[in-house]
């Protein structure tokens, strides 16, 4: 049985143009308002008055935790959180247990994503075996597997050995892949807890100097230039890093970079509370850094926003600061935070949001069958977002397994009202569709693709 058709009435595209959208057989077609034909007549109508239609968001940096850390998140719950945030594709980081460093693990992660049906799950492969930073993992096998891995990362750990990083850049180039580097000099950040500055000294928390990130990025862009390979820099967090990347791009080095929503909004001042919800890697930085990241996104130095969604169980955050885990969940809140930091401040338009949260991350990750243009016949992956509302971000808004969000209790603008993945809804009227229904829709889509 195929999935039903939908008629989205009165959506606003990022260009400002208003259109109806007919969603049928996993494809979308813009239709003029009040079109009446046999296709639209049988479709379920959705009133999208006042809603912005964005292409399905793509997160290049998600931790789904499965296999191995299912108490924090699973592929199902993580991709459900993604749908709640308007995402239709997520790239799942490799620091699972076992590590995603073989074709078997990445194919398993992808299959779990396909079965759940909330989003396209593209596994990221580990650059080195076991993330140990010693020898390359089977990058070719992962690239040629059914998961078609194109992004390779030891995220959580920095590939700090310069020779190994050079080899990784070269070898990954062989498969049209990209190395996504977690830039953190390990010696300069031993037991580091927060941004290094007068505040870390006052609070007695071990400092995490900006230079520990910037020096690695500087080395990596020079290596990428030397060997002519693509480099992607994960979660850029300092003004100095933005400067280095701007310089690299001006030299024609093929480097892309991401910023997380939390580094675009929150600062180290929150650490005064010693509330471990604010403990994250890289750490929250200063106001100047937040401003530099926003400016970097506005001028294209920073290419994309990626969430670094990092779920942790309650007990990992309910402790003294030093003992707590690094990371925050971010999929469900990403769009609202982007609106606060970038749209409401006038730095970015909605078309730019579509670029940095959908088009560019899809390009960097070589995501197949992705479109951001709402052209006739485009894959029906999109989200309908209400930017005019404003509400307290509370537990109801979280759809993953973990609740370590730094935004709980804050008033944030906007709300994802609908998300469509492969032409079926994963979010309807602001509510995430139940997992059984979504799995059935995904199965119907898969059957239709096979037979159709």
């Amino acid at each position, binding site marked *: 049985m195929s999935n039903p058709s939908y008629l989205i009435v009165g959506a606003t595209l990022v260009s400002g143009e208003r259109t109806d959208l007919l969603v049928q057989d996993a494809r979308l077609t813009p239709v003029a308002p009040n079109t009446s034909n046999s296709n639209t007549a049988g479709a379920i109508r959705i009133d999208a008055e006042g809603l912005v239609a964005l292409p399905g968001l793509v997160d290049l940096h998600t931790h789904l935790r499965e296999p191995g850390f299912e108490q924090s998140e699973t592929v199902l719950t993580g991709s459900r959180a993604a749908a709640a945030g308007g995402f239709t594709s997520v790239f799942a980081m490799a620091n699972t247990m076992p590590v995603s460093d073989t074709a078997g693990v990445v194919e398993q992660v992808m299959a779990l994503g396909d079965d759940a049906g909330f989003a396209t799950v593209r596994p990221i492969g580990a650059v080195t075996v076991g993330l140990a930073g010693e020898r390359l993992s089977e990058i070719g096998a992962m690239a040629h597997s059914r998961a078609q891995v194109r992004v390779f990362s030891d995220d959580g750990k920095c590939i700090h050995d310069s020779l190994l990083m050079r080899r990784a850049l070269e070898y990954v180039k062989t498969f049209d892949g990209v190395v996504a580097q977690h830039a953190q000099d390990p010696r300069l950040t031993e037991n580091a807890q927060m941004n*290094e*500055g*007068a*505040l*870390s*000294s*006052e*609070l*007695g*928390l071990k*400092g995490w*100097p900006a230079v520990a990130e910037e020096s690695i990025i500087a080395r990596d862009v020079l290596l990428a230039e030397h060997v002519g390979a693509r480099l992607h820099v994960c979660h850029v967090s300092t003004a100095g890093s933005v400067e280095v990347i701007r310089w690299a791009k001006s030299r024609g080095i093929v480097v892309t970079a991401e910023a997380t929503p939390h580094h675009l909004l929150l600062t180290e001042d929150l650490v005064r*509370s*010693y*509330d471990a919800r604010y403990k994250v890697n890289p750490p929250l930085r200063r106001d100047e850094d937040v401003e530099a990241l926003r400016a970097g996104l506005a001028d294209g130095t920073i290419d994309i926003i990626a969430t670094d969604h990092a779920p942790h169980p309650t*007990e990992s955050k*309910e*402790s*003294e*600061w*030093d*003992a707590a885990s690094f990371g925050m969940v971010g999929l469900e809140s990403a769009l609202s935070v982007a609106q606060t930091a970038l749209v409401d401040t006038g730095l970015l338009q909605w078309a730019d949001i579509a670029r940095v949260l959908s088009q560019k991350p899809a390009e960097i990750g070589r995501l197949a069958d992705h479109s951001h243009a709402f052209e006739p016949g485009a894959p029906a992956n999109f989200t309908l977002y209400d930017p005019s509302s404003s509400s307290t971000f509370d537990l109801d808004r979280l759809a993953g397994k973990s609740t370590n969000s730094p935004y709980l209790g804050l008033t944030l603008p906007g709300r994802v009202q609908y998300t469509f993945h492969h032409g079926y809804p994963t979010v309807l009227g602001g509510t995430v569709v139940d997992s059984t229904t979504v799995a059935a829709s995904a199965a119907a889509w898969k059957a239709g693709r096979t037979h159709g």
Partner: protein
Amino acid sequence: MRHLLSTKTLSQGEALQILDVAEDMAAVSTREVKKLPALRGKTVVNLFFEDSTRTRISFEAAAKRLSADVINFSAKGSSVSKGESLKDTAQTLAAMGADGVVIRHHASGAPHVLAESNWIDAPIVNAGDGTHEHPTQALLDAFTIRRRLFGDRSRGRDLDGVSVVIVGDVMHSRVARSNLWLLQTLGAHVTFVAPATLVPFGAETDWPVGISYDFDQTIRDTRPDVVMMLRIQSERMNAAFFPNAREYSREWGLDDARLASLRPDTIVMHPGPMNRGLEISAGAADSAQSTVLEQVTNGVSIRMAVLYLLMSGDREVQP
């Protein structure tokens, strides 16, 4: 004041109140019967996640002189070393009916986390957390300075214009931090003297303190009222903060020659335990200018005052 977590957030009024109540407590300690009934029937828990016999027995003596019952909970060899969380420990103490918790923890901010949590409702006293603060040490140091300077006329006095030089491993010292904030609140001028590797990052630009790398020149330039020496830990040498003990001692130790270059009435302080011959010579430690043992005595009075003010239930009390 519901908890005592830091001196950074202490107002001058609150600080002077503690110092003045400590004067009353000191008077009690000179009596034949060194005991007040103020906390009779209340239970103080000394929750020590880090070894510190001196601080623990000082708090224990203070609580006992106020007639409180004292439970010492040491993390070593207890369930804590088997992985029990701070939360479970705190809830256990709450369930046992602790009326006040004195906590020493290796993690900065742990007392803060305890105070902000709903795990336990009792007043929390920070007895030293990581490299953050050690507020009762700073209070007893200020009390000691005030008594040396003003004697019986100490009550109600601040430390306006007093010059204090703090020497040594400031970076890793919660004592130095707590002293800086409190002394500044009381009107004193503070100078840190240390190798650049041991100056807290950002202190030079953002903290209300003078920074010097040269001990001798600082003595010449400031003619300080107080020189406070910090304990230097040998593991710092391995982490390349300075080359070796000999060089450290030559540049930043208070040896006999430097002692002689001080004003004869300059007070020499050390929070203890001392490394004699390293950061302080025996001559300096045992001189008439040294207040090392007064600091220990005054520590009990300060801790009595803090426990009394937080736990007696009579928050309106004036000294």
